[in-house]
């Protein structure tokens, strides 16, 4: 029965005059239609999660022609897109997402899914465009409410309570989208734009947005990481002074918290201890500080202040050597390149940072004509991080200057043979091989090798 008592928003029945008059909440025919399309949608979502994509697709396509509110029709298009992705037909899926957006412009999930397809296809410009639209839609007031909610007491959301559907429709928070956009821009040649996005992101952290605590955060790096990423972006954008300021901020926060020695242990099991910001963060704190010094060293190479660069790289290295690695059943030891184990990203970051900072110091020593020290650092760098292209090239350069030309040529040749790893987005941008204030021209080096061969 849809008539009888009317409930007010406090859940108290208001009887009396109303009780004798039946109130029509919804036309029965409309209700029938609503139930029909909602059932189709929920069924489609369940089938999709059971892997029955083609069955789901046909019923969803039938449902998309039913008379129904726009938001629900958009949902059928969106789910059809999901089915097509599962059936490895991304272009058709994109068509469905486009239809969903045309039907209901608030269908953020369609934008998000389109973005994922572009990312998969490597269409970076389209991906950035989709991210921008997604961020805009998410930050527009009111977009945070589910698009399907309406004031009718028989809201369609009542009939759409399905776990599969909820999982399918989840969309990252606006801040995560902003971060993805910033990173994409920086990595794909739109550095100034990326810098702006990073600065917007940092500003958002200092504002009092009460919804932020509710937002999920697992896709977003920790705040010091974001500072360092923004710093790296500024450095790539040739703004070393701004980068140094951001790094100083991080260092001032972490400096007094740095431990004397840290043991990086292989975690026993996957049990997340809930006890505060204590032991687990010691390594992270140390790595943040080291990375900040490393970036500051880079900044000084850009300013051609080689002495200061050496100082900062040294600070970074001194911090990094405090970390020992303890594998299961053995004593703590200084990590080496061939160490393996389930240490997560911390060990990778540690080794990479050590290799890069040794390389940076080696280059700085080269510029200061301290070739012996330079060679030591560059060789150590290659030992820790064998794939470091900069270290290989500069190591050859130093050998060349030391008149060890055959060794230099071998070193260069070996370096050119390294297939540059495609760094995925999970490696923070500050751990990429950033351009430093001195560079070597590969063609010139090849020319030298040729000359050597002639000689």
């Amino acid at each position: 029965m849809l008539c009888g008592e009317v409930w007010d928003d406090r859940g108290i029945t208001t009887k009396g005059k109303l009780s004798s008059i039946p109130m029509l909440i919804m036309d029965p025919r409309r209700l029938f239609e609503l139930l029909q399309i909602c059932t189709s949608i929920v069924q489609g979502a369940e089938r999709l999660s059971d892997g029955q994509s083609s069955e789901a697709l046909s019923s969803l396509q039938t449902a998309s022609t039913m008379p129904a509110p726009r938001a629900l029709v958009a949902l059928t298009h969106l789910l059809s897109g999901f089915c097509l992705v599962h059936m490895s037909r991304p272009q058709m899926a994109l068509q469905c997402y486009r239809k969903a957006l045309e039907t209901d412009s608030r269908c953020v999930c369609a934008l998000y899914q389109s973005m994922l397809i572009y990312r998969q296809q490597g269409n970076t410009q389209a991906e950035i465009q989709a991210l921008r639209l997604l961020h805009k839609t998410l930050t527009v007031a009111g977009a945070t409410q589910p698009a399907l909610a309406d004031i009718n007491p028989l809201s369609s959301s009542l009939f759409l309570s399905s776990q599969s559907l909820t999982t399918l429709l989840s969309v990252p928070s606006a801040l995560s989208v902003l971060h993805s956009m910033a990173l994409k821009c920086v990595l794909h040649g739109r550095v100034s734009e990326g810098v702006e996005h990073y600065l917007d992101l940092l500003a958002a952290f200092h504002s009092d947005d009460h919804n932020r605590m509710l937002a999920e955060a697992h896709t977003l790096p920790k705040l010091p990481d974001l500072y360092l990423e923004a710093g790296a972006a500024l450095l790539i954008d040739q703004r070393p002074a701004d980068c140094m300021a951001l790094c100083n901020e991080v260092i001032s926060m972490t400096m007094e918290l740095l431990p004397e020695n840290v043991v990086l242990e292989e975690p026993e099991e996957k049990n997340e201890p809930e006890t505060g910001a204590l032991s687990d963060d010691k390594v992270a704190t140390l790595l943040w500080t080291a990375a900040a010094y490393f970036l500051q060293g880079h900044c000084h190479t850009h300013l051609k202040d080689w002495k200061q660069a050496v100082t900062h790289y040294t600070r970074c290295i001194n911090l990094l050597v405090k970390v020992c690695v303890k594998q299961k059943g053995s004593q703590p030891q200084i990590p080496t390149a061939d160490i393996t184990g389930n240490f997560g990203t911390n060990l990778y970051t540690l080794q990479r940072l050590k290799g890069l900072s040794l390389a940076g110091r080696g280059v700085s020593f080269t510029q200061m004509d301290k070739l012996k020290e330079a060679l030591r650092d560059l060789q150590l760098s290659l030992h820790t991080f064998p794939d470091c292209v900069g270290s290989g090239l500069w190591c050859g350069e130093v050998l060349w200057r030391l008149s060890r030309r055959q060794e230099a040529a071998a070193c260069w040749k070996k370096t050119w043979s390294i297939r540059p790893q495609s760094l995925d987005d999970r490696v923070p941008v500050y751990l990429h091989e950033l351009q430093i204030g001195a560079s070597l021209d590969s063609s010139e080096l090849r020319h030298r090798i040729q000359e050597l061969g002639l000689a």
Partner: protein
Amino acid sequence: PGPAELGVSPERLVVEAGGASSLLLVGSVLLTLSQRDESWLLTVHQTQTPTVLICLHCGDASPPSSSSDSSLPGGHFRLEPLMFRLLFGVEAALAGSPVVLCGLPDGRLAFAPLRLPGSRLRVLHSLEQPVAVVAAPGPGLARCLVALGERGGLVLIGADRGGGLGFTEARVAAPAPVACGCVDERRLYYSTGSDLLALDLPEGSSGGDGGEEAAALPSPTSLNVCRVAALSEPARHTAGGVELLALSERGRLLRIRLPERRAESGVATPPSSQAGRRLRDLLSAIGDVCERWSQQTNAVLRRLNQVISVSLLLAAEPPAPRQRPVRCVGGASWSSLLQRRVLTLRCVLHNASPYVLEAGWTLSLAVLPLCAPAPAGGGSPSRSFSFPLRRLSSGDKLEVSVPLAEDGDACFPLSVSCSLVFSLSGLLGGEEAGRPAGCVSLPLDTLTVDWLHGLRVGGPRAGAVGGDLSGFLRSHGGRRNESGSTQTYCACVRVSAALLSHGRSSDVFLRLTAWYLSRPVLQVAAGEESPAAVRVQAESPSVAAVCGLHHALLSRIQVGAEEPAGLHVVTPPSL
């Protein structure tokens, strides 16, 4: 004046029960009874065990709401930046985020930075008993956090020597569950309901040198304040010392001023003997106040007891008039006052009770003409007179006189109601005077002054005052005799000899009739009927005088049959 109304904003409501007609707290369960439509609804609300929630700010970062004001609202504390980072991590500090810290009933202290996305509550420490107080020593930048459990478990969280977090645990005296508490720069104040205690925190917990790990905590000092249910943040008192605002369990707001404990740290503390003396002085001062108060209370109670005894005695079933423990007798007489003839009532209060009527009691006489025309002014024709008693011991008498009527201005009969009044305001001493207070009024006798009293002109000099009598009669009879008629009216009463000889009062009655016989207006023919009856006859040209006299005679003879018709007619108070 009623209690001040307190506004409670909706967001502070813990339980909303509309239309509840009664409520009861059983343990942690709140029961409400309400009626909805035809049925009664008993609702069980599980009340929340109290938790503690505070907000911590890094360094001098201003809290979100107050932009310019540097002072923090209650429940907010500022932590020294390094301490803040140690406790809550670099991220919260980098974001300049306030951190909320809560103490849970299971003893966990958990925190969450407000500005970090997706931040969840993380556990900092566990007290393993319900958390009662969490605070940071203020008002400056705190170098540690203090948490106190309900059963006296105390933890100080500060930086240790190695640069990490140090947790100093201790147990402090808590004879009863800790109800509330607060912290100032150097001390933790906490209430166990039975007492308010102050505990010195280790040096360095606020400002100064770095926090000391495992500092020995001295035992708390009792402040001798009980039933404190809530405490505000301590404030520095302008005259030195600390001021606490406390709310008692009964809803009373207390301001507790603690004297300056000692000078700034580093200066030598006063020798213990001096401290002991100060404490003794304080205690003896408290003792004095206590003793004075109890003496005063005792006196009041004793007097109140006496008032109640007297009241019970007089309110009991009235015995025969002569046996009444406190009674009033009176007589009327003409006297000359400022050259005017005034009929005066002389009233004697006789205390035959075993109690002393002390100050505070008042003899009150209300004079009411029984058949007077309403006065022209519209007010009450009655008049009243009060005579405060000083002290009337058992067996003593007090005589008072009141003017009843002036010559030519009386209207008989008059009723005089006597009562003893005790004002309760007198009990509470001078400061309560002027306020309306309750009083106890105990009716005694009611006296009637009639025509015969008005006629009475005094025994031995009866003839000499005949002029008074004729004037009196003229004034009262004249109104009826303006036509100049010489006709006289006559009323006659025959009293049988049996009645005359009845009882012990007979000879008094005879003396009375003899007196009547001597009156010129009354012609009593007694001779021939002597053995059998006495005839009393009143004659006057005034019909009113004859009627009044006749009534007075009759009432006297009726009462005189049992009572000596002395100078008063007794009406028991209950009639």
